[in-house]
């Protein structure tokens, strides 16, 4: 029995892309994967940059009656990186953090202002760290595999330079900085140094970034296309080391559903991202199996740590906490079969993987919302 898992990074696709997933199906996938709380990114259509969209999301989540949904608001209007969104209003409507996910804030002055402004509400500012000039046209890690496949590469430096910038701005503004889905050894190194110097930063990684490398792209496999891209073995090792020593606080899924026809395209044309809610727990438990993390630490990175990063009163089984509980059989072995996903989408590179650790029952606010028994 574990506290319900908390995912700081999902894409529920509603409003705008209901053919990929809806709040209903996305949260059903969440509870099937043991997540009782999810934070949904604002890159919907329209972008969640105002109160009405936030309210719509919360209402749909309530109607779905699966997991708790915590919306993340946009940093800038339309996530265009130009003018600040009405962050105070978003906070008031229920947003728990702000991010221009998928559209990194390239203008450092805007980012500085956003961090400063968010201080007023003690809202965490999330950045998808990518220098869009360095990554221009890229669709996989720049390395041996991109050289062999002739695919335009995204160098690690595209992430590293923005991590460095964001850390400098966090130090300048004293804002709460949360770095989304880190993928490089350089990022881990910089976050470690920043934390030791007392900068208020939390960092997340995704299961695919510690389970796979750029090798998975061979054969132009679009299920291995995501942003940030899968990196090298050295990066994977650095991420695992970061998880072990606490540099990386949180494991989040970056659950990014896409329809079959979206992914069934030539690599460059296929959209980024994979579904992750229903595979995150066993992939995390694999780190315990490998001896990289203790079971307690692994669970903390899916529960108490994410809750702490965004100030959510979730992820704990302490007396008085919400009755969000997940029953897991840690020894149960199963094969990942995308056809059985609750999500509308099937885009996973883990199809056919034999994994260990299965969610049996998920309870949200005292109500059974998923029961595999």
């Amino acid at each position, binding site marked *: 029995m574990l506290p319900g898992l908390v995912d700081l990074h999902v894409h529920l696709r509603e409003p705008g892309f209901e053919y990929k997933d809806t709040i209903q199906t996305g949260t059903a996938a969440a509870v099937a994967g043991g997540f009782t709380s999810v934070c949904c990114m604002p890159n919907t259509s329209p972008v969640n940059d105002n109160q009405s969209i936030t309210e719509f999301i919360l209402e749909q989540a309530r109607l779905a009656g699966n997991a708790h949904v915590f919306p993340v608001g946009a940093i800038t209007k339309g996530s265009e990186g130009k003018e600040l969104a009405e962050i105070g209003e978003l906070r008031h409507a229920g947003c728990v953090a702000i991010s221009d996910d998928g559209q990194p804030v390239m203008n450092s002055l805007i980012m500085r202002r956003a961090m400063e402004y968010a201080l007023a509400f003690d809202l965490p500012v999330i950045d998808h760290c990518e220098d869009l000039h360095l990554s221009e046209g890229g669709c996989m890690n720049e390395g041996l595999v991109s050289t062999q496949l002739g695919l335009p590469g995204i160098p690690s430096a595209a992430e590293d330079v923005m991590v460095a910038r964001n850390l400098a701005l966090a130090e300048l503004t004293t804002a709460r900085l949360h770095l989304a889905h880190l993928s490089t050894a350089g990022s881990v190194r910089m976050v470690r140094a920043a934390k030791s110097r007392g900068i208020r930063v939390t960092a997340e990684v995704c299961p695919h970034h510690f389970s796979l490398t750029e090798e998975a792209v061979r054969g*132009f496999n679009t299920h291995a296309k995501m942003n940030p891209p899968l990196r090298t073995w050295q990066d994977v090792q650095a991420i695992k080391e970061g998880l072990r020593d606490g540099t990386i606080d949180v494991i989040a899924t970056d659950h990014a559903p896409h329809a079959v026809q979206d992914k*069934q395209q*030539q690599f460059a044309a296929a959209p980024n991202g994979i579904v992750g809610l229903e595979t995150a727990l066993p992939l995390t438990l694999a780190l315990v199996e490998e001896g990289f993390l203790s079971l307690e630490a692994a669970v903390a990175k899916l529960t108490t740590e994410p809750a702490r990063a965004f100030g959510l009163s979730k992820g704990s089984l302490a007396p008085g906490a919400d009755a969000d509980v997940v029953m897991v059989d840690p020894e149960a072995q199963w094969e990942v079969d995308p056809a059985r996903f609750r999500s509308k989408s099937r885009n996973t590179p883990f199809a056919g993987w034999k994994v260990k650790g299965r969610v049996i029952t998920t309870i949200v606010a005292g109500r059974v919302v998923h029961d595999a028994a």
Partner: protein
Amino acid sequence: MSLKRKDLVSIASLTLDEITLILDTADSFKEVSGREIKKVPALRGKTVVNLFFEPSTRTRTSFELAAKRLSADVINFSPSSSSVVKGETLLDTARNIEAMQADIIVLRHPDAGAAETLANGVKSSVINAGDGWHEHPTQALLDLFTMREKKLNFKGLRVAIVGDIAHSRVARSNIFGLSKLGAEIRAVGPPTMIPVHLDRLGVRVYYDLDEALRGVDVIMMLRLQLERQGRALFPSIREYSRLYGLTAERVRLAEAGALVMHPGPVNRGVEMAPEVADSFSSVILDQVANGVAVRMGILYLLSGAN
């Protein structure tokens, strides 16, 4: 031995025996191209579709001629940008073509991997006629054919590939093919045009053309995509030409009788001085002629019932 595959999408996926089979088969077809009546009935009743998402008169014409000399019916299909704008995917387009009973689809596409995606999605045979920066297998095969025809032995053959290696499918296919055949490959260009970890593919990287040309048996020049100027890969055509252009003087640094190759079309005076393109060492026109024979060979080998 026969070619037991549905598609030809890359040189990287071919075995040495398969490369040899294709070159041997092309050799037989060269005789057909020398006849008065340059036509054989081998692909009678088969339909070959040239599906070109990028303009390329040369490659398309070469495939068209090859297919016609084999008596196949040939359709040229260049999807207008409008259908792409309408959101029709590559597979949508290809399935429409397949519904018209195409036996072989020859694909040229600006994105790497397009040929493999197509091959996995349709029952027709797919021949990659160039996909992004990935591969251009028929070009490499005709290059290898030309080298072999000039009595060169691949084992230990020193080949310099000069130019924008990073953005060249011709370079990639030749690197994969030549290394399978045991040649020594030198890649030459400004560092902005050399892809990362190229050395790990068994290629020696040079930034200095004169140094790289010393003692080579083959000089393979790549076409400079002039539109790349302004993308910070090189400062000016003038400087590129001075540093990496092939002059008659530079050809003399190579082995006596070294071959000069170019996939065409040549930017005369940019990557190659006009007198070099027209010189005795230049085999550029042999490459064009051999292209038809090599493509006939590939069409023939892939034309078995699927």
